[in-house]
């Protein structure tokens, strides 16, 4: 049986009108912001399918933008978020693409592309960072890294984490080709400190590391 909570049915407190198209959009934006994790001046949102078609009526564009700016799902500024933008050059594109989820979006930063889906009732899933497949729900603190696919990397990274007595909830790996670039997504129970993150960064053949904070409930 599914674990359920009464707060799934008497909350969240959110800006309307739609949990998938508004609150979900904000949460996707927040996750993309946490993944990118550095200042940016430019972003393009590419909305697919139902997000593209009914997004305007549901405030999906506003939600996405509010999310990458760090606003929570109950922030009243979402409604007129365009008036709150400073120093970010943003644009929206729309595409019908039946290979993509009905409610999905690309966040296109200058040097990174993040693809995510709003999977219902405000729940979201980030599925791609650049061309790597990942699975990020925002429910756990998560470490994401891209590295050269060399033997032993997984055990090196998990050892560093487990040395801190931190439990690993899930581990997901993906690679382009054997010996090519690979990605690793590790969800943990608890918190990683900056030291641990930089220990992972310092590993040989690791290119990119980001520690993605979970979203507030």
């Amino acid at each position, binding site marked *: *049986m*599914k*674990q*359920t*909570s*009464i*707060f*799934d*049915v*008497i*909350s*969240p*407190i*959110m*800006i*309307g*009108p*739609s*949990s998938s198209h*508004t*609150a979900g959009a904000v949460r996707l934006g927040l996750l993309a912001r946490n993944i990118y994790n550095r200042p940016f001046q430019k972003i393009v949102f590419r909305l697919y399918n*139902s997000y593209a*078609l*009914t997004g*305007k*009526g*549901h*405030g999906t564009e*506003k939600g996405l933008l509010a999310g990458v700016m760090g606003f929570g799902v*109950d922030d*009243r500024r*979402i*409604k007129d978020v365009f008036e709150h933008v400073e120093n970010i050059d943003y644009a929206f594109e729309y595409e019908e693409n039946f290979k993509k989820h009905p409610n999905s979006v690309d966040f296109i930063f200058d040097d990174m592309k993040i693809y995510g889906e709003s999977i*219902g*009732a*405000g729940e979201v899933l980030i599925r791609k960072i650049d061309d790597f497949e990942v699975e990020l729900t925002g429910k756990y603190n998560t470490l994401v890294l891209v590295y050269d696919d060399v033997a032993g990397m997984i055990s090196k990274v998990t050892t560093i984490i487990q040395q801190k007595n931190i439990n690993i909830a899930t581990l997901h790996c993906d690679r382009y080709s054997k010996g090519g670039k690979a990605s690793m997504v590790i969800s943990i129970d608890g918190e990683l400190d900056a030291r641990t993150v930089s220990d992972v960064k310092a590993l040989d053949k690791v290119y990119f590391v980001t520690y993605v904070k979970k979203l507030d409930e």
Partner: protein
Amino acid sequence: MYTFEQLLNKNEEIWKAAQEFEAKSCEVPVETVRKCALNSLHAMKEAVKTGLNSTVMSMSGMCGDDCDRLQKYYSKNPSIFGHVFEKILEYSLATSEENIRMGKIAACPTAGSCGIVPSVLLALAEEFKKSEEEQINALLTAGEVGRIISGKVALAGAVAGCQAECGTASAMAAAAAVQLLGGNPKQIVNAVGLSLKNLLGLTCDPVCGLVEIPCVKRNPFMAIHAMCACEMALAGVETKIPVDEIVDAMEQTGQLMSPALKESSLGGLARTKTALELKKKLFNL
């Protein structure tokens, strides 16, 4: 504790069982659970207050000024069903209109159905001068009802139709009402059953794919529907089919329902001539 039968077997007030269960599964004190429920309650009150005083239309321009219309009408023509009836209608419309104009609401269980539980709960609480603690108990009762249903049926129009969203909300509201009016757990569970049974098969066919038509005006209907279940249950009327079996029937009905009637806007109201014209106009197709 996953079925209504198990809940009744506990021989305990539903809100008590709910807060204990929640505290245990989230590993927090009971006070924290009550505090979180109070936050939702506050958000509900705020949404009603803001909604009653606004006529701002939704972005599509299709909805947003009907609560005002209703209030003006009632100020000259009191409802033949009395003052609580007026309040329930006004509060539910106020909340769901607040939702579609991008106001702040508490999803209950979803955003599209957010006006149903608050309107019943708040109107009765005001009318019968119920304390904040009693209101929290009623909301926890509603929450427990929704939680048990959600363990079997996904509360999403896209999965099980509107019976799962507004239908569940109406059952939750009925439970909150019986709790508030002093009913016992058995009466609460009967109210849930009576309410759910009557809404099986309700489709989700929103015009233009927006949570506006029929959703906004469905909220007041569902709130009054909850009151029918509440009063019958308080009178001792019982559902002959046990609630857990009704929930199973809801799940099955959801599966049998055509995808065209589950939020895809490919059938029903969303495919009427006028709906298609609205869509053309709205999306410049």
